[in-house]
């Protein structure tokens, strides 16, 4: 299998006043195309920071980040923004839907960044909502839906522009077990049937079981890794 993502000797430091805080000193990792990776670790271990680096929403202090064979750490702000729109879908713990928009309008947002015609956009929105099983909720506003439904709308939004990579920060952190399992099942399906590469941060060992493998992060280092049974 080919690598979708390759991090080499990545350093990430924050400076607070004169103090330098190193989150990662020399972090290297590879993520294969079609992988479903769970990232676990204590609070403050750098999980969200790593997702930001993978998704081009933050920059490494040093080191290289390749995506599909191309260096994304070299891109300008504007290029990086466009790169995100084309290649990464994000899924958040609190869904981050626009409260004023309907489910369909929320899902359509990433398509506004493309040149698709309104008709094609509507078709793609319908397909995405269908994949997450919410075709009947297209006209509902977020507050008219349960947490699990909102998260599935968010998943539809993340996949509607057909990105290769899905990044999820605690996607089930706000859901009960049953609903969480439904959402995780949807992610698994996207990984298995549509070949999406997924990196998911979670505190929940049960959630991590849905992934193909799990990496444990502590103080900016990978301390353990395991493959799913």
């Amino acid at each position, binding site marked *: 299998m080919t690598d979708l993502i390759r991090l080499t000797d990545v350093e990430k430091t924050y400076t607070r006043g004169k103090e330098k805080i190193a989150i990662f000193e020399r972090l290297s990792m590879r993520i294969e195309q079609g992988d479903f990776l769970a990232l676990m670790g204590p609070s403050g271990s750098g999980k*969200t920071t790593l*997702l*930001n680096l993978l*998704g081009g*929403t*933050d920059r490494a202090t040093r080191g290289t980040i390749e995506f599909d064979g191309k260096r994304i750490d070299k891109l300008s702000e*504007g290029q990086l*923004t*466009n790169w*995100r*729109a*084309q290649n990464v879908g*994000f899924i*958040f*713990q*609190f869904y*981050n839907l*626009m*409260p*004023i*928009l309907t489910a369909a309008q929320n899902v359509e*947002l*990433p398509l*506004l*960044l*493309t*040149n698709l015609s309104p008709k094609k956009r509507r078709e793609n929105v319908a397909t995405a909502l269908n994949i997450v099983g919410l075709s009947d909720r297209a006209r509902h506003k977020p507050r008219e839906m349960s947490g699990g439904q909102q998260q599935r709308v968010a998943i539809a*939004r993340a996949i509607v522009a057909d990105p290769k990579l899905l990044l999820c*920060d605690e996607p089930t952190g706000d859901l009960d077990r049953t609903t969480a399992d439904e959402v995780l099942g949807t992610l698994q399906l996207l990984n298995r049937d549509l070949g999406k590469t997924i990196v998911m941060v979670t505190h929940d060992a049960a959630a991590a079981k849905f992934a193909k493998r799990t990496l444990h992060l502590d103080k900016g280092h990978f301390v353990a890794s395991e493959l799913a049974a």
Partner: protein
Amino acid sequence: MASLFKQISAVTSMNVRSIPQRAAMSIASVVAVALAISVLLFFLALGHGLSQTVQGSGANDVAIVLRDGAGAELNSVVTRDQLNIIAQAPGVVRRGQAPIISGELLVIVDGNKRSTNTNANMPFRGIGPEGLSLRHNVHIVQGRMFRPGTNEIVVGAGLLREFSGFEFGRTIRLRGTTWQVVGVFEAPGTVFDSELWADVAVTQSLFNRPNVYQTMRVQMTSPAAVQTLKRFVHDDPRLQLQVLSEREYYAQQASQSTGQFTIIAWFLGVVMAIGALAGALNTMYASVAARSAEIATLRIIGFSGYAAFFGTMVEALMLSALGGVLGLVISFIAFNGRSTSTLSSGFTQLVFRFELSPGIIVSAIIVAVIIGLFGGFLPGIRAARVRPQLELAAQ
């Protein structure tokens, strides 16, 4: 490019539709803009109305003579000798042997203002026998003209509306003398409408100003004759006087007073607009703060900072435009077309209307738009700088 436009319109529509969630602040900033605009409009309409009123008075074949450099009527002095010289000047119209001239003396008396029930200054004008015919749009509408040599007065209809105690038939006391109101005249849209008129000789003696006039009106044969009179006066060293056509004279007076109102309008308008701008900035910063997680989310998805900037700008512009429209509505309801009286340049009461003009309305709209542009700019930059990071989106 097409994508940027779609982004901007999507973000803008979301912002605008979520304004109700920030209703209190948004309403406050709309009201602040509305107040600033109303105050600006109030004084501009005042100036415009005044200028319309004063410019309405004035013929160009009637000459007005003042002391050279006097500026206003009240500062002017014309002696009886000077009056007699001008009466013989070429181009003066005659009725039989007598030239159509009027030496005039304007004094200030107290009157009781109806609206406030307080004393205010009123112009009391002594005019010559031809004083009425020298004013082309003035007509007696009740009673008759005063008879020369008597303590009779006629009163302007505008003054009657504003002041009490001068009604037709009343006997009044002014400066220790008893006067009889024998007529009411109308001089619509002119300064005279707010005056009291009496015989100039009687006025000179009862107000202790023997042989002194302030101004002189002369009926000339044509507008060109006014120019001839100017030269005649200029060439005679005994006549340190200034000649203007009536129209020129009132245009000059108007520009002084409207200039003052325009300055007041813009001074107060700008001060209040700065206040409104502070309010708008505050509201828009609060809006950006309230939307920061939303903005971060959109930025993560791939929306550009420009979309966040313009969305904020348009929200600010819409709020201030709404304020501007509200200010206009308030102005139309509260004072446009209403009449008022105020101190004109000669400390005299002048009755006129507030009048909004298209130009004034456009200035108000421009001020509202400027408040919106400045009020949206810095918050817009803050919005554009919201970093697309997961932890920001999670707040």
